[in-house]
């Protein structure tokens, strides 16, 4: 199990504006390095692919992605489950995110985005990548946060996560 805890500030944007961006699956997926969103299903879920390089092995995952949003509370969750194109590995990822007013900047309109997630990779890949998977996933999460923040415009990232964790 690989846990993700990311948090970043968007000083120049109000929570409602940041939320609008976060609740658009296309915008969010564009911020995930290597990810592409496919067709939408009747139940509101999406197909998606994610290409990840684990050390030497480039692995393409196909996933079914479900998005649950609570507009009033500005909270949401993404669940993705799928397998790689070789069929040797499966993964499950859940990610909860919320937008709040930026702490310490009350009345100035800034936002903070908080992301908590869990990733699990099982199967053959798990044996190949060992500790490397944790690093790759953390690196991707950090890059995702960075992209999202940049998209929000002129945002700064607080407590930039350590890649080597």
């Amino acid at each position, binding site marked *: 199990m690989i846990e993700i805890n990311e948090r970043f500030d968007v000083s120049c944007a109000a929570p409602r504006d940041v939320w609008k961006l976060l609740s658009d699956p296309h915008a969010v997926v564009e911020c995930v390095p290597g990810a592409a969103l496919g067709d939408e299903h009747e139940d509101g879920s999406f197909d998606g692919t994610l290409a990840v390089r684990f050390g030497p092995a480039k692995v393409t995952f196909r996933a079914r992605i479900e998005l649950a949003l609570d507009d009033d509370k500005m909270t949401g969750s993404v669940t993705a489950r799928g397998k790689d194109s070789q069929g*040797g590995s499966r993964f499950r990822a859940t990610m909860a995110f919320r937008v709040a007013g930026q702490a310490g900047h009350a009345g100035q309109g800034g936002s903070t985005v908080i992301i908590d997630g869990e990733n699990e990779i099982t199967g053959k890949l798990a044996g190949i990548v060992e*500790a490397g998977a944790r690093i790759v996933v953390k690196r991707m999460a950090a890059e995702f946060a960075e992209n999202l923040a940049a998209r929000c415009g002129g945002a700064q990232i607080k407590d930039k996560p350590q890649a080597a964790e």
Partner: protein
Amino acid sequence: MKVYERLAEAFKAEGVTHIFGMMGDGNMYWLEALDKLGGVNMLEVRHEGVGLGMADGWARQTHGVGVCTATCGPGVTQLATAFVTAARAQSPLVAFVGEYPGRDQDYIQRFEQAPFAAACEAGFIRIATPEYADEAVRKAFYLAKLESRPIMLSAPMDVQQMKFEDEDPYVPSSTLLPKQRLVRADAQALEEAADIIASAKKPVIVAGRGALWSGAGEAVQTLGKRIGALIATSLRAKNWMADKEYHAGVSGLYATKTAINLFEEADVVIAVGASMNRYTTEHGYLYPNARYVHLDPRPHVMMGMGRSADCYLQTDGRVGLEALDAILAKRGHQSTGYRTGEVLERLANQYEDRTEFDIEAGTMDPRKLCRALDEVVPQSIGLLTGSGASAGFSTMNFIKPRPFIHAAQFFACIGQMLPAAMGMIQATGGKPLMLVEGDASTMMHLSDFDTAVRYNMPLLVVVLNDQALGSEYQKMVAHKMKAELSTVRTPDIGSVARAFGGRGALATTVDEVRKAAAEWVANPGPMIIDARISRNAITLAHRRVLYGKDE
């Protein structure tokens, strides 16, 4: 005649010239009878498992049957790790072992050897009666060759002392086996394989030790040229044909970044005499878009990712490749594939490793050490790589083709390559050989360096000594564990070698290694260079799996 005398005659008649092992109550009569017959060299070792490891080395080098011996009970239990290793290496060998006398059920060395052999993945034959003696030996050699696996031939001590009453000469196992005929692929299957290959824009040929054994080198090059293939080998055929163009090195985690990027483009992989196990293809991830054509003499081989090739050809490697090339020639097929000048340029620098490490004072960068040895030790000398972290350095940094390069890793155990090296030296009639090993591995069977000294073997052991269980050290650092727990001090192993009567050196700089290795090259004999290496240098394989880096 006693049964043990007949058994000695039978082994000699099987063509045995070398036996490796340790004498005990259970085999000493047989060994004395062999000595009387003459023409069979018995090499005494200090640990029974080393004897079996030597027979394994002999088998890997000659593809013939290696022979070892141990006494009953405690002599047999010592064989465990070496047996499993030989079984995984598919080495044909016969282990002649004693067995407690059946009439004494409380015999102190009593041990149930049959289930032990089964657990060690070896075949088992008991010489239950004098009448069965000939057939038992014949069957042991027959099965070892036919199934390419180790066989335990168990001779109860009381049966050995019984009378053998047959005057006819022993009939060897060679009479049971048909003359070796080459396995040829089905014509329809060959056409299907040719269709797949003809459609390839980026074909890769992966040649394994089966291809090497079948003498397929020229056939690989000819087909490779026709279809524009990149040539790779399995670890078992490392550096084979490395002096030829478009050679990408080892397929697997030991591939360079350049090679991996090229493999990724492959649309067809032609595997020849390679099992295509999980390591060769990284569970298939190395070739995400490829279809497979697989040539092997066995009825079928399932690849490591649990998949079967798109077209499997049961064939001898060389004959199969020649047939494919003939079909493609008839069709007028010729393709550029990977063979553009640009790919050649990329491959030219593929072994450069630009990652810098903070090398501790008094130690050396193991990568530089291996490169220096590859230069100093002539290409005519065979190489054995060891286990653990040491293999990660040697495999990536010895890049010259040599008459043979044998890797360990059949059972991922340590300590098995010193025995294999000694067996291979005997198998090649005493040709010099270099083994590059780790410190824990070397220490495990260091007592048997005495064997190398007693028989004056031209063996150079270079110890990549990080004073630790290097692989565990690297993993514990990555996992933020208490890595000091994996550090274990060694003595100056060079001075131990000298105390044994061999030569030895302690080296803390690459120049010292060069000097010592050059002395050995000038005058090969049993020698150990204890080369102190940095713990901060991380093998490329570990950089990949532990840190998610790709170079």
